[in-house]
């Protein structure tokens, strides 16, 4: 299972812990809705909608170094075209979700013990 990598954010923040804090908070607040949207679009067989919501979620996870999750989402995005294999997509979404839950908990822990040091 992959782990969150905050090096990109820390580099960008250049010591501004508050910024890192805010971005993690945004991720924790917003992405459950993104994930829900992905699942909902798949269940509704709205393939363009699924592509769009997967694309949005993929953008967010990449900034946290969740490359494996990003790859799964990319596959979902690519497979969400007529005629789509709904079962396969649901399996991919489950796999994406499992990764995501781990990352989410990890980020919540980071936020609780917030003392970021530059990572090399």
């Amino acid at each position, binding site marked *: 299972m992959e782990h969150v990598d905050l090096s990109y954010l820390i580099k*960008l923040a250049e010591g501004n812990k508050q910024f890192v804090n805010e971005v993690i908070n945004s991720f924790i607040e917003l992405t459950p809705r993104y994930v829900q949207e992905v699942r909902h679009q798949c269940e509704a067989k709205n393939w363009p909608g699924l592509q769009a919501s997967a694309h949005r979620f993929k953008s967010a996870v990449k*900034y946290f170094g969740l490359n494996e999750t990003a790859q799964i989402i*990319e596959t979902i995005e690519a497979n969400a075209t007529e005629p789509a294999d709904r079962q396969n997509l649901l399996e991919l979404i489950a796999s994406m979700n499992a990764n995501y839950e781990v990352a989410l908990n990890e980020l919540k822990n980071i936020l609780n013990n917030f003392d970021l040091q530059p990572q090399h």
Partner: protein
Amino acid sequence: MHTRPRILVIEDDFVSQQIIAQCLEKHGFRVSCATDGESGLAQLSHDSIDAVITDYMMPRLDGIGLLKKMKEKPIAVPLIMMTAHGSIPNAVHAIQLGAADYLTKPVNPDELIVILQQVLQEREWRSEIEPWRDEAGGEAHFSNIIYKSRAMQQVCQLVADLAAMDSTVLIQGETGTGKEMIAKAIHSHSRRKDGPLIGFNCAALSENLIESELFGHEKGAFTGAIKTRIGRFEQADGGTLFLDEVGDMPPATQAKLLRVLQEKEFERVGSNATIKVDVRIITATNKDLHQVVRDEKFREDLFYRLNVVLIQVPPLRERLEDLPPLALYFLQEYVNRCNKEINDVEDGAIQLFLAQPWPGNVRELQNVIERCVVLEKEHVLRKRTVASCLQLGFPQNKTAVFQLGNSYHEVKDELLDRFDRDYIITFLKKYDGNITKAAKAAGLGYRNFYEKMKKHGINKWEFKHKSV
């Protein structure tokens, strides 16, 4: 007034939006945000935005849709498209539709800032030449080219005849005669008019950079190649590529260009993959290209490939009957732009223009008239103002200004103006029109230096070819 550029970030993922905004703010940009193309378009219509950074895929209106709507309106704000890593075809598509550049996600902050600065600099450059482009070419309707002379009538007839064909065209003419405008007119009346018109100045870059600019390069092809870059040929696929100052193209690039003309294919620098393109080539030069061939500085085989149809744009001094309508057109243009109330021209003022040799041709005329409008304090463009402005372009006795009978403050302002202008010109000459270098050497900020250039109607491109 110095203002920080405002950048519009359009991204439906708030996390990404927040990250990009932070990166931009840290580098001194002002940031506005939107979550889809439609709301982004609304902001672009109402707010003053200097550049757009947008996601490719978004709800309601995606990045490509936004580009098309901006073109329709038109909204002339440079747009940088963010695409997923590895989706180069999307990037190519965006650039062909007019995107200024592209970024892959997750966005590299350093790359973002470098690209944004390049795009803003390019925009500044465009704003320098756009008035000139718009004047005679309008939006490239050559029926709007302002002329009375038989010589220009013949040029326009040739342009009309060429529009229906797909031939390669060589445009020859002195600096400032409007070669780029002619190229634009040919493109906009051709079957390729809905395709891109991509311009490139062959004299502006070193040999290595020219190849990379024309043919593109792969990531890592050389030091500094931080990402795959799409060259001008790819950008112009389905449209027209205008190669300005082709006579200054380095020999190695000439050989590559010849191959593209023959085979319609090329490779990006650092790649073995052959790319095929459908591009019409229009070239221009202020040199006698045949003579450059005789001097063995230009390949003869390439010359014959380029010189399928030759358009010779006459210098202004050989078609002085075009000068009065051009002068009046520019006058009206700058009066509107500068919000002045000059509604007449004193008798004899146009005669002063007609008596000049105009080595810088129409562009020089335009610059002088802009200066006249800036300096004129009456509601009539006076001979005195014209004389004063014309003298500035030539070596002169510094006391001449006293003979104009102006007040102490007028004379002082005039001399300070002259000093400013001469100073800026000296540094631009020294640094071949490179504003960044000239400003640095002069100990002035880029914007300050550029504002002075604008005030005095100085165009950096006039200093790019001082050896010609």
